[in-house]
């Protein structure tokens, strides 16, 4: 994939790179008279303000996508409910403010219970996922099954002769191999994040233009 040169994309790259360098320098350097931290704070404030405009784009997108679904009669009823709910909350929010009784009621008695319901399904989904992943296919899955079963058994509050040994085994699995693996992944992710940041600063990655 070759990048085409354009003046506009070069301007974006220079602006993005310069802003990135200033924010980064503000983290490292403290020069008297040159208030980099203040400048950094201003730039971050601007970013927040600009991001706030994205709310409008998000709302427009929701309306467009749901209108399209209504026109195509693909789950049109749900889209209609979505748009009606969106409009209602918007009207209440604009007339009485975001802390009005109606808006708070909607969040407390509609959104929060719905989210809780959705997450309560997780228990069943975990069982189904475990059923699939614990199938014996190869040596790795056999090991996974064995360790999984042992850890599950160690959580059972029953007293049997080797319960303490099993609890010790569980603690060792969680503290040593599992933590070592997780830390290895986190270390790799950190390196990946640094690399991505540097590529952005250098203008190599340009998600904002082409």
């Amino acid at each position, binding site marked *: 994939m070759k990048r085409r040169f354009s003046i506009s994309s070069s301007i974006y790259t220079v602006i993005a790179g310069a802003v990135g360098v200033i924010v980064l320098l503000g983290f490292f350097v403290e020069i008297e008279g040159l208030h980099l931290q203040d400048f950094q704070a201003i730039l971050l404030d601007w970013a927040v303000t600009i991001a706030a405009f*994205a709310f409008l*784009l998000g709302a427009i997108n929701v309306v467009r996508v749901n209108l399209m679904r209504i026109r195509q009669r693909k789950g049109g009823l749900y889209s209609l409910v979505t748009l009606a709910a969106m409009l209602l909350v918007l009207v209440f929010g604009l007339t009485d403010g975001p802390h009005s009784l109606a808006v708070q009621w909607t969040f407390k008695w509609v959104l929060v219970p719905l989210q809780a319901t*959705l997450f309560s399904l997780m228990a069943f989904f975990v069982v189904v996922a475990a059923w699939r992943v614990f199938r014996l296919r190869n040596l790795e899955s056999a090991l996974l099954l064995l360790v999984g079963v042992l850890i599950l058994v160690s959580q059972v509050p029953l007293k049997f002769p080797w319960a303490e040994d099993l609890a010790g085994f569980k603690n060792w699995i969680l503290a040593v191999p599992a933590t070592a693996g997780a830390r290895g992944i986190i270390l790799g*992710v950190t390196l990946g994040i640094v690399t991505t940041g540097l590529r952005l600063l*250098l203008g190599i990655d340009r*998600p904002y233009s082409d």
Partner: protein
Amino acid sequence: MITETQALVLVFLLIFLPLMLFFTSRVRGGREVSLRRIPAFEALPSLIGRAAESGQALHIGLGSGGVGGRETASALAGLTVLGYLADQAAVFDCSPVVTVADMALLPVAQDVLRNGYLRQNRLRGYRPTAVRFLGPTPAVYAAGVMDVLAHEEIAANAMVGTMGDEYLLMGESGAKRGLNQIVGTSNVETLPFVFATADETLIGEEIFAGGAYLLRLPEHIGSLLAQDWMRLLLVGVILIGVLWRTVL
């Protein structure tokens, strides 16, 4: 006065940056680099093929994170995969459904998708509504993706980005329907769920290697090599630290 943490980060960057530039220049100079296999990246083109053959859409999820926060790097990794799939979708005339959970990510994703169609001179095939903002919270996003995967004409599912526990709800919906799924996330806690539901997984840092594997960009390959060297350096430092503490 520079603090200890700042000094460490500075030293890290001062080693990393020249390494990255050095390897990039070597790759640009034509030096052959063999990258280890990542099956998930190898399988990505087959998702488009499957979607094109069946005449159905390909779902591309960018996760519940966005740009501007801690999840920015993961979101950018998702955008790299989206850029590649956008090119392929334009070539094979396959319509993607892209879902996002961050309003700031929405225009960026639309731009990346549009550029894919533009590069292939198929701009007429681009629809802005192909990118959908589903909701700003993980639960709402998951509910939206569950609906897309369960009820729309979707042939395959690719998801790369930040995903928490809510991924299981989405992944299971896809798995239940028998969709071919490729999923990558940097969230360690979510990886077991990904492993349980997806056909191919991108584990942790692998999501950031999309540019090197899919687009073969010299800068990305160079930075990947620098990353590997930094990892070796860190392993060395850890080993020296362990020996130091053990012996002294």
